[in-house]
């Protein structure tokens, strides 16, 4: 399933970039993430609890950041395995400065879902994944605001 979209952050490109490179902040973008520990420069491991209405599942997951072009773009890859199946998602994120206080990001990626959740839950994928991404980005933007307030 393909996921594309745009989102505007209320901050400068540097600030937005830094948010994406900070696991302690990034964790907020992944709904229900309990912990995220750094296992190498660009790899983080953690467990996330997905909670969509009645659907609940915990995924042991890995987050990788690659293809970094400072302030330009990076690739986020998430891999999760759990009892209800597996999720594998990879997306390119591009950072376009609009102004000092506004940065638009474009994301373009593919999500692969397998196992139990894929075989019976497909009706939910599209709207739910959009939902989760938007909620995640809102949380990041909020974090950004808090950070700016200092």
């Amino acid at each position, binding site marked *: 399933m393909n996921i594309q979209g745009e989102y505007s952050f209320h901050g400068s490109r540097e600030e937005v970039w830094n948010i994406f490179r900070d696991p302690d902040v990034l964790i907020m973008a992944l709904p229900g993430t309990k912990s995220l520990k750094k296992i190498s420069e660009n790899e983080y491991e953690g467990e996330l609890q997905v909670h*969509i*209405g*009645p*659907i*609940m*599942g915990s995924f042991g997951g890995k987050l990788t950041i690659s293809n970094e072009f400072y302030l330009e773009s990076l690739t986020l890859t998430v891999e999760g395995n759990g*009892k*209800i199946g597996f999720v594998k998602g990879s997306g390119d994120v591009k950072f376009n400065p609009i102004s000092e206080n506004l940065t638009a990001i474009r994301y373009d990626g593919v999500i692969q879902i397998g196992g*139990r*959740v894929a075989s*019976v*839950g*497909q*009706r*939910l*994928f*599209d*709207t*739910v994944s*959009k*939902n989760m991404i938007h*909620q995640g980005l809102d949380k990041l933007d909020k974090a950004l605001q808090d950070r700016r307030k200092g």
Partner: protein
Amino acid sequence: MKPPPFEYFAPTSVDEALAHLTKYGYDAKPLAGGQSLIPMMNFRLAQPSVLVDLNNISELAYIRPGESGGVSLGAMIRHKTVGSDSLIVDRFPLVHEAIKNIGTPQIRTRGTFGGSLSHADPSAELVTISVVLNGQFRLLSQQGERWVHANEFFTGSFSSILEPDELLVEIKLPVLPEHSGWSLQEVARRHNDFALMGVAATVELDGDGSCKQARMVFMSAGDRPMESLQAEEILKGQKPSLELFQAVSEKASTSDIDPGGDIHASKEFRVHLAKVLSQRALQEAFNRAREN
């Protein structure tokens, strides 16, 4: 396909139920009709560690005439009971029609009004019509009660503003004013399936036969019931005409909805259906309004 283990409580009063929900918070799930929750549990997609069964709370199963011709529904009232209630049949034809389109006969004997709303499925009939009819929901927790408008209640796919310790206990639906008409249009793969696209509309005419006010809400058109505020804007004060309906459905289907694609229908097909159905809905609603 057997459900995972859970702790089970069968309270007989709302207070008792709220106490359990307060105690267990996120781990607990209220069990109403169970027609959506239990399949998810059988697939082991839902694994609540505590179930609070509301089926023994008789105080939540009622239909009462509300003020100024409206109706109040207890959250645990079953679809079939609502569908065959004379007050509903006589004065709330849209509700009656919506009930007929829910699942299968066996689902309707168990499923509940409040359960369906709390499940917040953007493809659900009751979710959609509760918004188009400007319903009001009474939410209760040990902290106290709050009343919310239907369109504030739904926050995303299968999510609402309900807190884990909170219960939807009553739904208030106002009656349609004089000279009103309504329509519910759905397209589904099979008659009993979730709508690929659906729309509910209500319109009210004023003396000179032009549109006093209108409401249009789409189902399966986004992550929640999708209101078309533009439709309401455009229609207001206008004389109904085919051209008008075309303009409205064009606008509504292109800018007021955000349907996803799945194995049954692409986003493009859904948008196309939204256009076709909203036009048909307006036509039918205005025709009915003229007859009333």
